[in-house]
């Protein structure tokens, strides 16, 4: 076990998979000679050469489609889209081809591509570089969506995604690449379906994913320390498919649910988890489920306004206290 950074975990997974299988390759903007905006492919260009660590033109739909086409022949591309804001441009190929080709070919073709892309609100990047897009990807049948919240997950999910025969979208976060965490030294693979209990508790379940897992964890500490509320934190690291069983299990234990998301509320993870609770364990509830979401605005440039647009730990604590009638 070593403590390494999020980007180092990704780099290690890339390196191991490329060393194992000559048909694994990676491509994206600035990932080769420049080493990657977030260093996820650092050193790989020197090791594997320009044909397997490809610096692409700024043509997101084009190179995503190219990766998908190569996957029809058994290649395993790991495509980095520099920012999810740019992934909008690749939606045609991701949604119309990657997600549907296995189905519409009657099972003849597979598109085992991995697309990694960071999103989220970073620091004063403005409206067109701060999108939170997971809600869009998770709504498409035929596409798997995972979102790692730690270096351990980043490594284990990328390893499984590369070997999985389905297309997998990995939603990363701009602010997490330098985060440190323990990663086992031996090779391992994380399931592409499921969730993890990142903190056990009995009074309320806080559902988070990606960066909001940390808001949930810190809120749980405050709730425990100051308010004698024992919160469970469930990390929904698989967004499509969502872990129905895991959601039901936790809500059946705590009987209360708060879903915390960095994105705008409409048609989002919170809405979907609430629907699952409603369908699968409504009578387990002691209180109506609550969402803690971003404001329904584009992300402003001004830092104070930017912070006000997305939730924080205190919003989570307040939502739980309100649920318990403590405010």
């Amino acid at each position, binding site marked *: 076990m070593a403590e390494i950074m999020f980007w180092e975990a990704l780099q290690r997974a890339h390196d191991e998979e490329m060393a194992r299988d*000559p*048909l694994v*390759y990676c491509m994206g903007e600035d990932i080769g000679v420049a080493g990657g905006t977030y260093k996820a492919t650092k050193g790989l260009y020197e090791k594997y050469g320009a*044909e397997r660590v*490809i610096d*692409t*033109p700024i*043509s997101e*739909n*084009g*190179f*995503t*489609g*190219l*990766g*998908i*086409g*190569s*996957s*029809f*022949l*058994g*290649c395993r591309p790991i495509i980095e889209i520099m920012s999810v804001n740019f992934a909008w441009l690749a939606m*045609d*190929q991701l949604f*119309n*081809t990657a997600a549907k*080709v*296995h*189905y*519409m*070919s*009657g*099972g*003849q*073709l*597979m598109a085992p591509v991995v697309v990694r892309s960071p999103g989220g609100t970073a620091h004063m990047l403005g409206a067109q570089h701060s999108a939170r897009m997971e809600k869009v990807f998770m709504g498409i*049948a*035929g596409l*798997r969506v995972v979102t790692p919240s730690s270096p351990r997950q980043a490594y*284990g999910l990328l*390893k*499984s*995604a590369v*070997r*999985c*025969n*389905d297309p997998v979208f990995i939603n990363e976060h701009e602010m997490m690449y330098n985060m440190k965490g323990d990663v086992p030294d031996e*090779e*391992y*693979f*994380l*399931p*592409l*379906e499921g969730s993890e209990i990142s903190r056990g508790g009995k009074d309320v379940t806080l559902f988070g994913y990606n960066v909001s897992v940390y808001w949930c964890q810190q809120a749980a500490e405050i709730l425990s320390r100051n308010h004698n509320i024992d919160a469970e934190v469930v990390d929904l690291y698989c967004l499509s498919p969502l872990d129905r069983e895991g959601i039901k299990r936790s809500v059946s234990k705590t009987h209360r649910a708060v879903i915390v998301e960095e994105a705008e509320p409409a048609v989002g993870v919170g809405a979907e988890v609430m629907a699952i609770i409603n369908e699968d364990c409504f009578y387990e509830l002691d209180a109506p489920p609550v969402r803690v979401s971003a404001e329904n605005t584009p992300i402003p440039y001004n830092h104070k306004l930017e912070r006000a647009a997305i939730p924080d730990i205190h919003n989570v604590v307040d939502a739980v206290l309100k649920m318990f009638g403590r405010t």
Partner: protein
Amino acid sequence: MDSDLKKKLLREMLFARRFEERCYEAYVERKIGGFLHLYSGEEACAHGVLEAARPGQDYVITSYRDHVHAIKCGMDPKVVMAELFAKETGCCKGLGGSMHIFGVEQRFMGGYALVGGPFPLAAGIAKGIQMKGGDEICICFLGDAANNQGTFHESLNMAKLWNLPVLYVCENNLYGIGTRIDRSTAVVDQYKRVSSYNIPSAQADGQDVEVVYEAAQKAVDHVRSGKGPYFLELMTYRYRGHSMSDSNAYREKKEERMWGGRDPIIMLRDSLIEAGETSAEKFKAMDAEILEEIENEVIRFAEESPEPSMDLLHKYVMTENDPYVKGGSK
């Protein structure tokens, strides 16, 4: 082109025409649903190009006007028709339809319904060939109107940049759905547009299969010899509307008559008759034989095949039993 090859192509092209025209009838009879885009009039393009390549070994990808390319790649017409009839015996088990014919065994990598969508997929298939080290090529057939999509430019750029073995064939039928090319496209000669990517290109008569074949031989040789992508523009015309829902009101009768007089099948037939290699009677007999084959074998197979079972609804959303979904074996 020797006369045996010409005769073979005449039979194949006539079969393609009769197949497509029978699809028209089946659509009117409501046996075929959805959108149906017919290839009548453009037969010399697919046949001339693929005859110069290695159908079944080279990879082929195209748009929604895909039945004839699929058959020329070696797919069984019965299985294609069964797909159009939405039957379980169809190539995609009734999940694809007319716009999504696939025959991966024959390396027909599919028909796609987003205009311009296959451009980068073809470049990717070529990238796959390059990584695996074979001497196959990828041939991408698309219409002229697809060239106004961003994928055209993005893909040509990457194909040239990375020297990918891909042949782009532009079947220029002069219309993008119902809009004439000079009303939608600033540069009407499509082969000129690729010069900005330094990709060699040519324009040829797409109604004369011999001309197509010769132009394609040059194009295929270029790509197969490792010189990178090539763009071949074939001037052609579709005798039917864009799809079956097309009233065809946007084309002038004079223009239709002109192109009708350049029917690729009639042109090939007449050149064979002139050379004394066939006769009007023999052609008629062949036509009757083809019509009978389509009726008694192809249509019958499609008609008599079962509907897909209901469990197919969910079967191919994701691949089955993938161990890594559960976290692998380790």
